[in-house]
Every structure is written in structure tokens, then in C-alpha cells.
């Protein structure tokens, strides 16, 4: 989707932080994913317009990075690490357990990821980029359910706190007096 008016203003502020426009690529793609829950073709086309690039250049960059989802993935992304410290501490079982549990659930995407730098909590995983672990598959499922039911507030699919998104949409300055970053 195209940016909302509030996000368009924020996008222009972000672009102004950089000596060259193109550097705003990743931040704008994060902003688009915050807004829509995934990276829509329309959003990538708008980012291209804002940065004086072609949509192909934006897609070329976006498709390189794993956090950007180029199709709808539901509301929660559960990223399970199976790199070596998690490998020897139950990561693969955690991944398999969660995959079975959420195979038919369109709201939850369970993905295998590379090391997320939380190895002292192996097996480690993230729910919308919030760190968790160590957990069994059952414990992790309980936690995911708490996010699903709204008892825990999940970040956006780009990892931004929802409060920051809300401040901006309201047009009010954030609590620190500046823009939410």
C-alpha cells in the first residue's frame, strides 16, 4: 500500500537524515513493513519514487534481506535459531514442534533462522524480533498464544514497538520530543 500521510512525512524526515537519498532504502522498507505487515509491490514502487530509483532497484535490494517479507505472512513471525549452539541445545526440536503446531495457522509464520546472537539462552527464538529462550516447544507455543490473544503486545513485523507507530500516526511528537526511530 502507499504510505499514509503521517508515514509519508516520516519518510521525508528519514530521507533528510542521509547525505544521499538512496541510503534511506532500508529504513523506508522497514517503515512500509511496519505499516502493511509485509512489503507490498505498491510500497516498493513508492519507495522507488521517493528515492528517485526504479522499482527493480528497490526489489533488488529488498530481496537480499531476510527480514523483508514480500508476501503476506500473518501477524506473528516466530524465528527459531538452529545454528550450532542452539543445534546442540534443542533448537531443531523447538523448530519442528512449533512448525507442527502452527502449520495450518495463517496468523503465525514459523521460520528457521541463522544465529540471532542470543546463544546464552539456547535454544533461542524471537517473536516479531523480541528475544526469548530457552524454551521447549510447548513453552514457546504458550508464549506465542499469549501474543496472539493480545496478553503480550507484539512488535510490528519489522520489530518496531507499536507505541512508536501509534505516536507517529497521531501526528504528536514522541515522548522524547523527537520522531520515533
Amino acid at each position, binding site marked *: 500500500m502507499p504510505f499514509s500521510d503521517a508515514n509519508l512525512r516520516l519518510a521525508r524526515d528519514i530521507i533528510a*537524515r*542521509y*547525505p*544521499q537519498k*538512496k*541510503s*534511506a*532504502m*532500508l*529504513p523506508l*522498507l*522497514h517503515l512500509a513493513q511496519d505499516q502493511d505487515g509485509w512489503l507490498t509491490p505498491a510500497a516498493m514502487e513508492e519507495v522507488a519514487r521517493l*528515492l528517485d530509483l526504479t522499482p527493480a532497484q528497490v526489489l*533488488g*535490494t529488498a530481496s*537480499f*534481506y*531476510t*527480514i*523483508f517479507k514480500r508476501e503476506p505472512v500473518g501477524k506473528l513471525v516466530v*524465528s527459531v535459531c*538452529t*545454528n*550450532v*549452539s542452539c*543445534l*546442540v*541445545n534443542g533448537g531443531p526440536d523447538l523448530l519442528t514442534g512449533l512448525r507442527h503446531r502452527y502449520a495450518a495457522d495463517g496468523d503465525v509464520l514459523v521460520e528457521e*533462522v*541463522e*544465529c*540471532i*546472537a*542470543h*546463544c*546464552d539462552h*539456547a535454544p533461542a527464538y*524471537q517473536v*516479531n*524480533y*523480541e*528475544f526469548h529462550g530457552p524454551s521447549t516447544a510447548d513453552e514457546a507455543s504458550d508464549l506465542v498464544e499469549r501474543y496472539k490473544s493480545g496478553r503480550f503486545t507484539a*512488535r510490528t513485523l519489522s*520489530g*518496531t*514497538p507499536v507505541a*512508536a507507530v501509534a505516536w507517529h500516526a497521531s501526528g504528536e511528537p*514522541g515522548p*522524547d*520530543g*523527537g520522531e*520515533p*526511530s
Partner: protein
Amino acid sequence: MAAEERLLVSKFLRDRPDDSWSFSVAREHNDAYGSLEKAFSMTPEQIVEEVITSGLRGKGGAGFGTGQKWSFLPKAVFPRYLAVNGDEGEPCTFKDHMLVERDPHQLIEGIVITSYAIQAHHAFVYLRGEFALGAERLGQAIADAYANGFLGRDILGSGFDLEVVLHRGAGCYIAGDETGLLSSLEGERAMPRIKPPFPAVQGLYAAPTIVNNVETLSTVPHIVRNGGAWHAEMGVNRSKGTRIFSVSGHVVRPGNYEVELGATFRELIYGIAGGIPDGRALKFFIPGGASAPWLVEEHLDAPLDMDYVQSDLKTMLGSGAIMVFDETVDPLLVAWRLAKFFAHESCGKCTPCREGSGWLEKILYRMAHGYGRAEDLDLILSFGNNVAPGLSWPPGMTTICQLGPSIMSAPVSLKRFWYDEIVERMRKDTERRAALEVIPA
């Protein structure tokens, strides 16, 4: 096992585990930004000199002299940039994760001093995309620093201006390579660039750019505060000061431990981290991240000395990630998983790495899962010699960045410690498959 933790960079976040990241707490209890006045009373050249005297070396992986790197900037070429490498992606490294989340003001203080020393007025913190809480806290910390006059125009009346931009990555290991980071910061795929020109000469937007790791910059305020000579007294030989080691895998107390360089692997793994659970024996350990060749029991008493580990043990302290594996672990499985990591993260720019990492992953998969062939290990080492010529350490290069030769660290270690054992196991697997009349993979 006499060595203890020597807390310098990680002291404050240990003292105040719940709120060390907050501006008021860091100001009140850790004298955050307290070294800026002293820094601004010095000339930029004096700070560079002090850091050279300190013997500080990059703590991100390469271990290059920090002050030397700064002194490579071409004279009188402006603008210059500082890029902070917080893309921590080396498997089992989690120190920058901790430093950014729990002591962001120490990092910002280091950024201000370093920017002043290299005369840059624009700094970018490239933070790994997955560090959502880190981004939130560092973003707040930067806002607080601006609001209190520690960033922005005319900092503390010094006449020095600095803009700091927090830039979130989006999930990509190779953005942790300094030139890959610059590509990513310019809005491109994070593909590394051929050196020379080095970033200090032509980096971000082809301007002189210094790329330093989060832990390195977090150390700088301590050096300014206490002097380079003070820092140089700690450590051993040319490995000065302290480093944070991320110990994980099969240890009783996995975690980040800051120790004075010169302690031994045994003191770190068996002393501070509590050793292997349930008294099981050590099979092997990886001393410096996924890219480092492996070590075994006989190397436990070697010192944490970057140069000794490189020259005598033929591996590296790298990013400070120490992964410990007990006797129940199959080295082939770990080697396969690391190969899978590299195959996933290879950016695809250089053929030896792009193709080699995929081949390696496929062959190690079959070896680790009962479908190996007796000649497989030799096959890997044969084509691996085209990725990391010589198969020695430091490795030869056929690729632009270090990811290429790094894929061979695990296979070289398999050969070094278990060659006969693996060939025999592959031969038996082949026989077993034949007996079962299973079609070989």
C-alpha cells in the same frame, strides 16, 4: 584457574543490570559522557596518538590496530564519516547485542570521541535488524544525548558538531563485513567491495570512512579517561586490554565474560563459564566464531593472545565467540550446520564462495546423515583448496571478503583431528547402505 573477570566495558551494565541503559542512571552512576570534556581539551591528533599508545585493536574480528586505522585517513580530505559496525552476525557472538541493549550511552560517548578524533561530523550506527530492543534503547539514548547537548551542534561548547543516525539492517550476515556494511548503508545489497581502496580512503559515498565495531568504540572512553599507557598495561604481548568473550554451547554458565587478554581457554571455559555440564568430556571448541578453525583438549592451556592463537594454533580469536561441544556431539553435524550457514549467507558475488559453499553444504549433509562416501572428505578438501588456497591459516584468498575462505575452516579442522576416523565411518556407511540395498544418494 586463577583468572577472573576483569570488567571494564561491561562493568556498569553488571552493576546496574535493570536500568543501566537509561540516560539519568548512566549519568548519575556511571559518569556517562564524563570523558568528553577531557577529550575536547585534547587535539584530535592527541587522541589518535593516545589510542595508538593504548594498543587497542578492533574487537569485531580482524583485530586491526584501531589508532592505526584512524591514522590511515588521507590528510585534508573531507567530509569523513564514522560507520559503527553493530551488525553482529558471526554465529555465537552476542557481546554487541548486550552492549547496545544495556549500555548505549557508553557507545555514544565512544562515537563522539572517535568522530572528534577523526574529524567526522556524521556517524552512522549500523545495527543488526534483529536487535529490535537494542534499536529502541539506542534510539532513545541518541535522542537523550541530543536533548542534553552531547550530540548535535557545538557539543559542550567545543565547537564540534556531530550528527548520529541509527540505521537498522534487515537480516544479513555479510553486512558485518566493513565494505558490505557500506554497500548496505548506501541502500544496496550488502555486497563487499574489493580492497584497496580501503574504506579509510574511499568508503561511504567514496569519502574517507572509518568502520569500527561496537565493543571497540565502547572501549574508547575508558582510554581517554585513564590514558593509553594505562590500557597498554593490561593484557599480554600485543594483545592489550580486555575483551568480552561470548561463551556458549555445552557450558554450565553460558554468557558474556570480559577478561584480561592473556588468560587461558581453560580458565575461561572451565573456570569462569563453569565447565561442561555433568562432567562430560570436551570433544572440541571453536575459539573465534564460525569462521575460525577448531581446537581440542590439548589447546585448552593456550593464552587468549590474538597473535599466538594465529601463529601457533593456526586459528583466531576473531569475534570472541567461544563455542564448546562435549563428547556427545558429532563434529560432522556441526561442520554441516556451519556450511549451511555460509551457503545461506554467501552474497553470491564471488564464484568460489557462491558455488563452493553450496557444494560443501550438500556433501557435508550426506556425510553427517549416513550417506557419505569414503572419498568425500578428500573431495571437499580438493575443491576447498580453490576457495582457500593452501588450506592453512591465515587462509589464502580467491574471494573479495573473508566469508569465502571461512567456509573451509570446519573441513580443515575435521581433517586435522579426525581424518582416519571419518574416512572409516564413511566406508562403513557405504557398506551398510549396500547391505540394505539402499540406493546411494
